[in-house]
């Protein structure tokens, strides 16, 4: 196969049979739907119709596959991590390397599709929300590539936690607007993006970053992300001659998880495990585990599990990971949870950071803190399932953006006085004190000032 031959559309992820859900109006059982002002319905209908036409258009499919291959670097490889797996009860652990994609995470898969859709409906401007900055960077990238104007809304709190990604977006020509309302994190960035969209809907398309929001976003983003699982399933069959026993992914809004789960949903023997951000622990109330610690309600245009109080007010979420720090979750996850097809477990900040350090030191891979939640899940699940288990973990992003947060957490900086790069770590008194041990991966003691 030469590198320039177009991938036949018949092989494209988008052409594969979709799950039976959602229904025509975007409902995953009782979840999903459209809870938005009437002023947005015409735009959502336009998107739905244009998307349904585009996904079966051979010219689009060829272009989408070409971008995946030549721009993003797909297919992303599978890496077995035996030294890490020694800490997982002897189970074998294989990583799906979405961290190696251009822009550093799975987010590029979705934005390339939505940017092509934007051009197709003749709009010149895109807006996006971002938490960790990964979706914002990906959107700014696609906008630069396709000559679209780009505005990214980001909670002020997150612009501080993820300053590197703010600079990246600006380098790419995007306008980054820090959001100062509410909790100043991802949920408020989404509110502001919706406000921009309802005001500028005639010229602007909203490139939504995850499998949440009103129909058609949950289904469309799933379709754009399912390439992760479609590739991984074929890669595992080719190299192992078998399917994995479990597929693990972190879940904030849940796009990387849906992306890797979808291909395996019909494989009833494959456990699908979503790892939610447990923050300080679900029992403390300071977490972002919408399914484990929330209940069904309506937020950001769809019915799904969410963190809410007795009055139906959204409760602020807490996680060391900006990308998982969201009080809602995509409606398909709620549906998969209720039908028992997928299971969802919380992973605390400490567990995630322990897994983060472990992967760094055993395998030379710095994961995104988001993805480290999935790695922590593998440590627990591997011990439960035993040495014969084959675990597939979606390494959804790389950790370059998290080096400062990790430095503060572990007390690794040369001058350990914390900067305002991670206010939360400072508040919790972890920044300036010797951090928790980096793990005993090599049975060595971490020296103060030891750099990652």
């Amino acid at each position, binding site marked *: 196969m030469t590198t320039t031959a177009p991938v036949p559309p018949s092989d494209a992820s988008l052409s594969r049979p979709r799950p039976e859900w959602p229904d025509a*109006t975007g409902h995953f059982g009782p979840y999903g*739907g*459209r*809870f*938005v*002002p*009437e*002023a947005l*319905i*015409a*735009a959502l*209908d336009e998107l739905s119709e244009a998307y349904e036409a585009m996904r079966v258009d051979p010219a689009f499919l060829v272009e989408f596959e070409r971008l995946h291959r030549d721009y993003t670097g797909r297919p992303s490889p599978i890496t077995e991590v035996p030294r890490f797996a020694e800490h997982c009860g002897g189970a074998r652990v294989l990583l799906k390397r979405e961290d190696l994609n251009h822009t550093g995470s799975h987010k590029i898969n979705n934005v390339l599709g939505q940017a092509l859709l934007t051009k197709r409906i003749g709009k010149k401007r895109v807006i996006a929300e971002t938490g960790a900055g990964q979706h914002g960077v990906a959107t700014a990238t696609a906008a630069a590539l396709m000559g679209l104007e780009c505005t990214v809304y980001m909670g002020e709190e997150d612009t501080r936690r993820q300053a590197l990604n703010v600079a990246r977006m600006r380098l790419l020509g995007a306008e980054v607007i820090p959001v100062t*309302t*509410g909790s100043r994190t991802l*949920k*408020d960035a989404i*509110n502001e993006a*919706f*406000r921009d969209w*309802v*005001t500028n*809907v*005639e010229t602007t398309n909203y490139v939504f970053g995850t499998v949440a929001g009103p129909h058609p976003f949950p289904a469309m983003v799933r379709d754009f992300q399912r390439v992760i699982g479609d590739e991984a399933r074929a890669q595992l069959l080719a190299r192992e001659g078998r399917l994995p026993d479990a597929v693990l992914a972190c879940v904030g809004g849940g796009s990387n998880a849906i992306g890797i789960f979808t291909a395996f949903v019909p494989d009833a023997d494959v456990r699908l495990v979503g790892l939610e951000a447990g923050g300080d622990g679900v029992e403390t109330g300071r977490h972002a585990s919408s399914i484990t610690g929330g209940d069904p*309600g*309506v*937020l*950001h*245009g769809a019915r799904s599990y969410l963190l*809410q109080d*007795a*009055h*139906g*007010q*959204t409760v602020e979420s807490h996680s060391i990971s900006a990308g998982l720090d969201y009080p809602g979750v995509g409606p398909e996850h709620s549906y998969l949870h209720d039908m028992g097809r997928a299971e969802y477990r919380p992973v605390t900040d400490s567990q995630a950071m322990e897994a983060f350090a472990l992967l760094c030191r055993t395998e030379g891979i710095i994961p995104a803190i988001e993805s480290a939640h999935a790695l922590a899940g593998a440590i627990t699940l591997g011990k439960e399932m035993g040495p014969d288990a084959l675990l597939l973990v979606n390494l959804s992003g790389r950790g370059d953006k998290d080096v400062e947060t990790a430095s503060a957490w572990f007390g690794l900086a040369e001058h350990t006085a914390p900067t305002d790069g991670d206010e939360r770590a400072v508040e919790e008194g972890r920044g300036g004190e010797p951090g928790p041990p980096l793990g005993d991966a090599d049975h060595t003691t971490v020296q103060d000032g030891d750099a990652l």
Partner: protein
Amino acid sequence: MNSQLDTRIGAAKAEGRAALIAYLPVGYPDVPTSIEAMVAAVEGGADVVEIGVPYSDPGMDGPTIQEAVDVAVRAGVGMADVLSAVSAVAAAGAVPVVMSYWNPIERYGVERFATDLAAAGGAGAITPDLIPDEAGAWLAASDAAGLDRVFLVAPSSTDARLAMTLAACRGFVYAASTMGVTGTRSTVGDTAQALVTRTREVAPDLAVCVGLGVSDGDQAAEVAGFADGVIVGSAYVRQLLDGHGPAGVRALSEDLAAGVRRR
């Protein structure tokens, strides 16, 4: 079905004027003052008060309303306070209608909300992020309790959606006059009049009230020239944010009430 809103807006029409509909959220700056402000709006001439339920994620509201509502959310204001406001507005002689994003109603319980709202003397509810397509439970509960239900139409609504939405409305239909979020604007624009015309063609017997953008008596007069009711929100909230209190609300109401009579 007897509709409080239809009756009151019809009475204004019989006087040859548009109705004045004032929005204020419960709980800003605190619950008693917000209720006092609603009563002041009525004393100044409001026919209907839209009683806002505080919500943490008011995606359709601009910065003015969000600033006020954030205070109420942080103070833990809930449906019990809203129902107190409903009773107070009814006692002051205006028609109370609740304005709420959907999740607080769903969380309270849709049937319970309808029952309690009717018992408090409320006319019904305006639901800005609930479209009739998703409103099965609310349609049933509002029918059972004899409540009005107000959905929104927008300039971008297709003819088919307009017809479907108007068929689901009772009391009046809320015409969002410009594309965008709530907030005062210097001009209301022609899109509002065009939308009202389209609405009347489909549902000639349903009152059309126009919101999003009116801030003074002159604009109220302009809108009153083509709509059955003029909805004012951010300008009222601005009075409270700027520290003018219930007296400022009353004065604004007087200006607006004169406007809707100038048509």
